[in-house]
């Protein structure tokens, strides 16, 4: 009680805080809001870009990855200027989903998208984005999804340890009218008008490159060079790095690169153990990280690491990325028939979380996470079995 009195007197010295403290009796600690700073010298103002929020741990600006459960595991979201690397599962079924959730989140928030792929046309990728679940009807659908999938055993109310029934699972229900992190219905497509209203750039490798280029050793493969030039042009022209100081509202650029490192990009790390271009991918990631750190952008990359022959390259790639998430699906492995894993479709491994302006990183306590793709939602749960 004495402590509050002293800080009340400190707060009284700054004129605006006293007024706010007396109005709301919660606490005397008040931030000087924008209404108090009418003068030019207003102190640090929060950059309020749609779809971002500052991290409560280290003040970094965060964007949502499109999956609120994954956001929670990463400590609130993906920091602007960092790379999220997804190690693809063996048959490439679940990693495109995470890729699409990231892009769909960008469309819903009004961010600019840059989609690069060597396999599919980016316009086709955008047509297949999941539809967002918005506010009131989504809560109803979420609840009925949860109840439909409850097994009979879990319906028995716990009698002795009844407090544990109130323990929340890792999944969070949709928060109505939240501006950060939306839910998506994987069985429906995003409405066409939302896609057309968004600002997106596509990079489809077969269109951009002619096939008779000669590659010198120890340099970037031409596909990677073109992609880096493309990204750099977009960042510069649209002012994401602050180079065009115009009137426009600041926005985030979401970059999505699909199947990086596969032979379709012209990179042979999946084909040979000691190819001529073994440094191409690592150089690409290094330059990409430099581009991202100096601009307001966030990037998601999916990579077929199970095909890379030289394991040292995987270690280098992990170090050069910021957040690394690995997906391991149970299809085709002996775990598929294991009764302990029957509710889940695979395991999700958080391999690395960055330390941004920190000495420690924000790891979650649980390491055994499993995911399942329900009828509409992709959920990540703590795997209580192992």
């Amino acid at each position, binding site marked *: 009680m004495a402590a509050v009195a002293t800080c009340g007197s400190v707060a009284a010295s700054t004129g605006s805080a006293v007024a706010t403290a007396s109005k709301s009796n919660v606490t005397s600690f008040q931030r000087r809001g924008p209404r108090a700073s009418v003068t030019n010298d207003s102190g640090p103002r929060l950059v309020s870009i749609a779809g971002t929020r500052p991290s409560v741990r280290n003040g970094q600006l965060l964007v949502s990855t499109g999956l609120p459960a994954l956001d929670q595991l990463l400590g609130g979201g993906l920091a602007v200027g960092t790379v999220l690397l997804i190690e693809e599962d063996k*048959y*490439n*079924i679940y990693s*495109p989903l995470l890729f699409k959730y990231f892009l769909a989140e960008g469309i819903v928030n009004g961010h600019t998208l840059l989609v690069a792929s*060597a*396999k*599919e*046309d980016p316009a*086709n990728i955008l*047509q297949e984005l999941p539809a967002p679940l918005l506010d009131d009807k989504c809560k109803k659908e979420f609840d009925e999804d949860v109840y439909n999938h409850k097994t009979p055993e879990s319906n028995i109310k716990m*009698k*002795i340890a009844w407090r544990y029934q109130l323990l929340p699972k890792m999944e969070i229900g949709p928060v109505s009218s939240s501006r950060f992190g939306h839910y998506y219905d994987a069985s429906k497509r995003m409405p066409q008008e939302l896609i057309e209203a968004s600002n997106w750039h596509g990079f489809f490798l*077969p269109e951009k490159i002619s*096939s008779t280029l000669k590659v010198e050793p120890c340099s970037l493969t031409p596909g990677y060079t073109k992609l880096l030039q493309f990204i750099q042009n977009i960042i510069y022209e649209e002012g994401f790095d602050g180079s065009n100081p115009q009137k426009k509202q600041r926005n985030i650029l979401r970059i999505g690169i699909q199947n990086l490192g*596969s*032979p*379709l*990009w*012209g*990179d*042979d790390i*999946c*084909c*040979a*153990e000691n190819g001529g271009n073994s440094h191409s991918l690592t150089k690409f990631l290094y330059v990409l990280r430099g581009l991202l750190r100096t601009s307001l952008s966030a990037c998601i990359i999916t990579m*077929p690491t*199970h*095909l890379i*022959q030289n394991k040292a390259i995987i270690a280098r790639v992990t170090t050069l990325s910021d957040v690394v998430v690995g997906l391991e699906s149970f*299809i*085709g*492995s*002996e775990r*598929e*028939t*294991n*009764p302990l894993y029957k509710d889940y479709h695979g395991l999700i491994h958080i391999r690395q979380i960055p330390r941004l302006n920190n000495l420690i990183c924000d790891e979650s306590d649980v390491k055994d996470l499993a995911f399942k793709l329900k009828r509409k939602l992709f959920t990540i749960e703590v795997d209580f079995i192992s």
Partner: protein
Amino acid sequence: MLDSLLALGGLVLLRDSVEWEGRSLLKALVKKSALCGEQVHILGCEVSEEEFREGFDSDINNRLVYHDFFRDPLNWSKTEEAFPGGPLGALRAMCKRTDPVPVTIALDSLSWLLLRLPCTTLCQVLHAVSHQDSCPGDSSSVGKVSVLGLLHEELHGPGPVGALSSLAQTEVTLGGTMGQASAHILCRRPRQRPTDQTQWFSILPDFSLDLQEGPSVESQPYSDPHIPPVDPTTHLTFNLHLSKKEREARDSLILPFQFSSENTKSSLLRQQALLRPRPGQATSHIFYEPDAYDDLDQEDPDDDLDI
């Protein structure tokens, strides 16, 4: 399912080995698609044209469009070839088709191409050829393309084979036991789970496909049949299950701190007994001798609370 392999389109890999050769299956599939009226192109690199055409009747032979790269692979004779770029040029030319007729391209063999061309270039060209019809806008103008590639597994390391498998829509691995050939078919549709199936078959002398019921038919999941699934509840030293009497006793147990809302005498007595120990009972006493260093706060704020 073996007979509907080409219905899906895309790249179909036929992986054979020394014991179970795949060229006869390749020829059988080529014959089947020729009889269906599709356009068939053969890129013959490994065996001569006469050897490949052997066994086909003239009707089928007339329908096959054969590109011979066996006789003169490096084009030393400098004749007017239809495809000057070698096999890669031939494949690239096929990327630019505009026919609505479905096409089957048979590569005999893909191993030959993989040993002589860089793997990445080959993957890019194969992807471009086999995915011409996947644009949703103009799917009606270009017919479905199937690329059948014969791959000799033992010639390559895991890298190139893995890279090609990830590109392939369907992968057929040949095997068998006791003289009976089998094909393990793994089908990857773009956004669905892969399905696999084992089919026993034999090829008749006129290269038609004869599907059979082999020793162990039907799809085998990847679990090993010799190891039974482990039941963790066997051989325990404690009892995990309740008998009926025990279950009834457990259900009728009244929990100590759960009080029902009714004010029956028994529940009131129970409540009193737990929350307020009766003075007559032999409760335990605590004797407290304050030390010199103990700081007893006379102004204990909790005294105001009235429980």
